[in-house]
């Protein structure tokens, strides 16, 4: 019985890792590749580690496997967010059929801060001299 559970869990895990690698090879855009990779690979490795936790009859191994799953679930979205943010700043091109880019014009190019649209529309006079001053400073 437990063999069947282990076989099902490891099959789903290995197949989701396979789908993540097919996605990173076939998707047309960096952002689509990022979104398909992180979630599927975290799910796959988590399921394989659950297999190891069930397989070994030892509390220390189970604790270790759960610690790895916890660490992966915490760190994978942070790393994906940071690399996606830096990719957006360096101007990685979007796919040609992308419907909407909601971040277009929202980032301040100098300070890398995210602004909302109302604030930008309310005080454009405050925005202009800041950018000009910082450009002068860099020159």
């Amino acid at each position, binding site marked *: 019985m437990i063999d069947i559970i282990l076989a099902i869990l490891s099959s789903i895990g290995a197949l989701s890792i*396979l789908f993540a690698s097919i996605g990173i090879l076939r998707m047309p855009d960096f952002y689509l590749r990022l979104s398909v990779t992180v979630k599927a690979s975290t799910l796959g490795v988590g399921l394989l*580690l659950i297999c190891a936790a069930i397989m070994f009859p*030892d509390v220390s191994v189970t604790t*270790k*496997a759960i610690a*790895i799953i916890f660490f992966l679930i915490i760190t994978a979205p942070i790393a994906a967010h940071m*690399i996606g943010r830096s*990719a957006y700043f*360096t101007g990685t091109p979007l796919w040609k059929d992308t419907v909407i880019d909601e971040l277009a014009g929202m980032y301040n190019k100098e300070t*890398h801060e995210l602004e909302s649209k109302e604030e930008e529309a309310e005080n454009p006079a405050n925005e202009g001299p800041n950018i000009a001053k910082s450009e002068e400073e860099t020159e």
Partner: protein
Amino acid sequence: MITLETYFDYVILPILAISVMMVFIRLFKGPSLVDRVIALDLIITTGIGIITVYSIRSNQAVFLDVAIILALIAFLGTVAFAYYIEKQKDD
């Protein structure tokens, strides 16, 4: 009826190996630097899965320590790459 050991040996491990090969293709031909960074991240994550299956097959739980260290290295590497790519644009 195949046993679980042969299932791990002849189904799960080849699937993971084929996944690593396909990610390597993206690592070689990735058009930009960030593509290569996420390809490396996915290779290390798949490596954690391979280490887990290998530790199940060889009945050695010590290999899971290596998986912990690899997860840490993957996270720190991706964060460091992201930080320096952003700084490189600023200058």
